[in-house]
């Protein structure tokens, strides 16, 4: 039933492309539960080629976090970053793929931005579906 809840979380996904992204991410979050990861949030969006999407996030000192993502097949390279409020990159993924992620353990409680960047799409004029989750333990 847990995965049913995750499915329900995304039944409002706007397009088939976002559905592909959310299905991929749901599986990762589902696996994470078995390893003790809880979920802060999970959401989907559509990005144009080169477009960014920003999410404000509070991270607690003392907790471990993972920023997980998935994109649909129209994405050649999705990037994910953690910025501080001054615009400095605190952490980033370093892969050329459509399922980037990274872990982060803050030394102080603070507010950051998770930024998704559709760096390269296969069909540049077609928007891509992307999904993002913040998990913790």
């Amino acid at each position, binding site marked *: 039933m847990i995965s049913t809840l995750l499915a329900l979380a995304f039944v409002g996904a706007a397009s088939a492309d976002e559905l592909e992204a959310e299905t991929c991410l749901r599986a990762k979050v589902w696996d994470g539960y078995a390893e003790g990861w809880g979920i802060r949030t999970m959401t989907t969006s559509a990005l144009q080629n080169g477009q960014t999407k*920003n999410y404000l996030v509070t991270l607690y000192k003392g907790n471990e976090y993972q920023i997980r993502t998935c994109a649909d097949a129209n994405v050649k390279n999705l990037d994910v970053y953690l910025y501080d409020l001054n615009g400095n990159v605190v952490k980033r993924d370093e892969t050329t*793929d459509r399922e980037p992620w990274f872990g982060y353990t803050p030394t102080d409680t603070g507010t950051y931005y998770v930024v998704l960047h559709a760096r390269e799409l296969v069909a540049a004029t077609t928007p891509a579906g992307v999904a993002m989750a913040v998990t913790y333990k």
Partner: protein
Amino acid sequence: MSSRSFWSIAAVFTAVACTGEPTPTTDTAADTAAKDTGAPPVLSPSDLANGSENIALVPSIVETQRAMEAAGITTQLAVLIGEKPYDLNNDNKDNVAVRSGVIIANLLLTVKDSKKEQLQDQLTKIRAGMSTLEGGSDIDAMLADIEDRVKGDSVTRDDLLKEFDQLSGAVIPELEFNGQKRIVPLIQAGSWLQGANLVAKAVKKEGKPEAADSMLKQPAVVDYFIQYVKNEGSEKAPAAITEKLAESLTTLKGLAEKKEPFTNEDIDLVIKTTDDVLALL
């Protein structure tokens, strides 16, 4: 919220869940992808703020409990929850939203050890709250299903904790509540306020006020709540709870911006301020 059937989705994913086998992921592909050397986008503070979404901003109460333990506070928040009758006849939606948030927080903290009757009572109240708030038929069906499984003792408390962790973090924030934009922030405010109240009581009990710094100094979170409580979507005269909530959040924002570590007096102020709101629910 959806044209897709909850039950068709449930059938598909229950089948997956019941296999007991983790769903394969594609991490391997990601791990072996070529190294990305592209420069990150240059984003100014205003670039970052413009159009940013707040869906990931507010920590869950389970996450707060874990951070508190990391800060050396061993008191379990669940033991600090008081017995309180809620005013279920008050159908003002602001009140219902904040109250629902508090009850969800309480359920998350107590679900592993609570008596069945208490759990059923919490579920009934949350379901009624979601109905009053126009959460839609999908979440009503989901809560009904959980009620049935609790009644029939066919779900473990560990699984229930995970399900409600997802409900508060991934399901409710995605609900549209029939276009009422302030409902989600008010539900989150209720949960966060209950968390702040219990964290303050825990650090007071252990005589470690400074330990609350990492949990309660979240000015961006308080700002987010204030924005909705004071401004957005206020279509009718503010209810007593909303006025008291705004007043309390303003006090909490002042404390959240404090540079020095929290003192016993600060913690007493957090407790009084949050108690004042919670007493109205």
